[in-house]
């Protein structure tokens, strides 16, 4: 039976390449594995000695199968994926017990064999088409390059035709026009599709997608995943999907491999791994993702505990989390009142009145003491403009903002200075908000005016302990710290002024899941203890559901829906909110708390 299907598979492949006949279902999942790796180890020689980036990894991908490699940064997932095309880079030492690509021993391949494979056997899709496609060449040139280089098609018109077909296949309408355009002229979703088109133009049997949806809006993420998934199921190709986001992977992967520090800690069918994770790290990864069910608890403390061992065979696992300190009841006048603000930008992003692009219109909300207000919306919804107006960096064209009852918007900076300490912020990218010449203590000291140096230093030490960093980091440069540590320094700086309201602008979107959990816990704990109000801006709906009391949904500069978090997310009224919720991958663990 197997030899018959192999013969049939061969037969199909030998057909004229310009007719893309989908493979009959019978040969889709059968057939020799595209990739068969056992015991892969990859190391680099760094200045501090040799390091092992990938450690004894086994990986198998069959035709028509979607395998996902999931892990946080530094887990070795990208390096593993690139090794399938020998694109790990110079200076890498690669070793494996078995390393078969397309049935042949790849350890014996020379450079020209690898070059022949790339683009024809396997295609690579990376993050962010804006930098992954040559910005100086048109979309048509990029998509057609693999065809011209490998001489898959001879004539220019045949190549042009195939390029247009491929663009249409990834769902780009009007491919005629797109062919002469450049990557920066296309929107985010279209660009990413063009990138996929460039990778599949040569009809590879394996598609490697390295974080293809990171840094995209949720709705576009969904579309891109859909395109990738279609490629697998319709055309019988294999897909290796690399991501740090388990929920994205859950949608289309057949099998999942969880990697940590270069090793595969768990692997198996997606459903199995996600619903009954065996390894502690996988459990931690799943449990650390925020959702509505994790409200009021510490994400980083999540663990699985056995409920009861009814019979010897099955042990039911239950997700348990430590609670955060309870929130004090909010009482008193509103901390922030935003009344009908609007902002208009001239073409090109210059502020001013007159015809142009409306960033905000008629936005009103208020934040009470000790309350956390979430602000969600996709890119271009006006979230950052709103944040800037609240922070007093921009003045609104209409409407007013009041902070602690005092007029805030439209005031000269001198009048506002007295209140500045009461309003702080936590940035998305802490490093660019630090003066590059400053040490950690200097960064925090910026917010501690009017103290003697010794007083200030001891206070900074206290603040650092409060955010979970040792006082020993005081004289370090932020550049030498990790992403999570830098964010903690930013939090310490914000707290130094003892603010009544902190604007958190996507504070954790750049962090790994486990670090994200820790930082969110920190923010939550400080908020509970100190009773500080938060304006929490994020694109991550589940995160907002976890941390916020009320939420504001922005779309194209207008408030589309507003209300308590459960109401808005579980019983959405507005169609946009519903679309937004539908686009987001459903949370992984809807465990009873």
């Amino acid at each position, binding site marked *: 039976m197997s030899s018959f299907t192999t013969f049939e598979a061969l037969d199909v492949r030998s057909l004229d390449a310009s007719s893309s006949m989908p493979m009959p279902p019978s040969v889709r999942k059968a057939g020799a594995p595209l990739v068969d790796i056992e015991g892969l180890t990859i190391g*680099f*020689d*760094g*200045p501090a000695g040799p390091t092992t980036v990938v450690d004894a990894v086994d990986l198998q991908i069959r035709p028509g199968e979607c395998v996902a490699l999931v892990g946080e940064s530094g887990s070795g997932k*990208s*390096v593993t994926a*690139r090794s399938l095309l020998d694109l*790990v*880079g*110079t*200076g890498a030492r690669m070793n494996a017990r078995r390393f078969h690509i397309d049935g042949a021993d790849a350890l014996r391949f020379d450079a020209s064999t690898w070059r022949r494979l790339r683009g024809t056997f396997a295609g690579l899709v990376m*993050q*962010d088409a*804006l*930098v992954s496609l040559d910005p100086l060449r048109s979309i048509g040139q990029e998509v057609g390059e693999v065809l011209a280089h490998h001489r898959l098609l001879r004539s220019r018109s045949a190549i042009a035709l195939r390029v247009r077909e491929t663009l249409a296949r990834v769902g780009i309408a009007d491919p005629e026009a797109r062919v002469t355009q450049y990557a920066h002229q296309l929107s*985010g979703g279209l660009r990413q599709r063009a990138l996929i088109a460039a990778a599949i133009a040569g009809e590879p049997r394996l598609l490697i997608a390295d974080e293809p949806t*990171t*840094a*995209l*809006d949720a709705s576009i993420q969904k579309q891109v995943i859909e395109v990738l998934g279609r490629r697998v199921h319709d055309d019988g190709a294999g897909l290796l999907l690399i991501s740090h986001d388990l929920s994205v992977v859950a949608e289309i992967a057949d099998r999942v491999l969880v990697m940590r520090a270069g090793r595969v800690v768990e692997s198996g069918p997606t459903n199995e791994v996600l619903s009954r994770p065996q390894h502690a790290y996988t459990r931690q990864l799943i449990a650390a993702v925020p959702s509505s069910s994790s409200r009021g608890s510490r994400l980083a403390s999540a663990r699985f505990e056995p409920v009861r061992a009814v019979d010897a065979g099955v042990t039911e696992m239950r997700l348990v989390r430590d609670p955060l300190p309870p929130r004090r009841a909010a009482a008193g006048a509103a901390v922030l009142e935003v009344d009908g603000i609007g902002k208009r930008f001239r073409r090109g992003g210059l502020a001013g009145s007159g015809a142009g692009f409306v960033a905000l219109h008629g936005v009103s909300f208020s934040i009470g003491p000790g309350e956390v207000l979430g602000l969600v919306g*996709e*890119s*271009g919804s006006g*979230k*950052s403009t709103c944040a800037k107006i609240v*922070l*007093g*960096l921009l003045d609104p064209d209409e409407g007013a903002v009041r902070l602690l009852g005092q007029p805030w918007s439209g005031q000269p*900076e001198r009048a506002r*200075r007295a209140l*500045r*300490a009461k*309003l*702080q*912020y936590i*940035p*998305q*990218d802490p490093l*660019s*908000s*630090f*003066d*590059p*010449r400053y040490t950690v203590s200097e960064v925090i000291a*910026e*917010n501690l*005016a009017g103290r003697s140096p010794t007083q200030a230093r001891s206070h900074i030490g206290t603040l650092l302990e409060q955010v979970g960093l040792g006082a020993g980091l005081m004289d370090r*440069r932020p*550049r030498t710290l990790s992403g999570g540590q830098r964010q903690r320094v930013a939090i310490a700086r914000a707290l130094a*002024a003892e603010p009544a309201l902190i604007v958190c602008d*996507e504070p954790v*979107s*750049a962090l790994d899941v486990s670090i994200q959990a820790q930082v969110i816990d920190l923010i939550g704990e400080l908020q509970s203890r100190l009773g500080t109000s938060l304006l929490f801006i994020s*694109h991550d709906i589940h995160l907002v559901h976890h941390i916020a009391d009320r939420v504001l949904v922005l779309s194209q500069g207008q408030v589309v829906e507003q209300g308590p978090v459960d109401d808005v997310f579980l019983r959405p009224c507005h169609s946009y909110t519903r679309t937004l919720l539908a686009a987001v991958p459903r949370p992984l663990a809807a465990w009873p708390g």
Partner: protein
Amino acid sequence: MTSSRQAVLDAPGRDPLAPAAARRVSSRLPSLAVMLSALFVLLLIVATAAPQWLTPHDPLEGDFLAVLQPPGSGHLFGTDRLGRDVFARTVHGARYSLCIGLGSTAISVFFGVLLGVAAGQKSRLLDEGISRVLDVISSFPGVLLAMLVVIFLGQGMANIAIAVGIAGIPKFGRVVRAQTQAVRGADYVTHACIYGRSRLQVFVRHVLPNALVAVPVTATIYVGSTILATSGLSFLGLGPQPPTPEWGVMLAESRDVLRVAWWPGVFPGAAITLTVIAFTVLGHHLQRRFEGRQP
């Protein structure tokens, strides 16, 4: 929003797996070169301040009995066509190159920084105006600009220093302008009012120091260019006149005796080359050291 997320996830436009190994290696390699360069510059300073420590001969006095002696006993670099010791002249010549080089760099830095910081401010008009002025200055090739200055102001050391200094203003002006604009747009500047800082305080504490971070590095490398330019102008006869032992002048004089004597032509030129190399290497080393501090 999306792009700022992307920018945060990895360094903008850089493949996260790109081997930084090659970079790291080359940053270790010149440590020997850096030491040698520093030693050479030290030597130059000694030659400028106290040339008598390095050579007993008088650079201006010629021994007519020892004309055009090849390098050997008594004369390390030989003697030139007037019997003067070439080594002594080379050592004494260091002060001219160094002083003119440093002087013209100082002029370029001072005016360049002034114009650059002004151009980097908010006013588009000021920016355009200053940029055009810089364009006009840089449209004159250095050597020709110097000729213009010399024909109006006369020959001599100071004037070619002024000429080369003016020619160098656009370089610093543009670098500082670009840095100032970049720094002014950075988060730590735009959000500094949150910490209660006035605009002047922000300018003095954040914008200026960060905008000028590249200046010492650029200046060190630029000293090499000025030394090349000024010695070239001296070679053409526009700078110090003979018998001043300036290296460019010495090379001009040596051209007549090239057929029979190689040493008056080789050593001064080697001195210029080594000086330029030394400053360039030191400048690049500073650049690598301060790379992390760039905004």
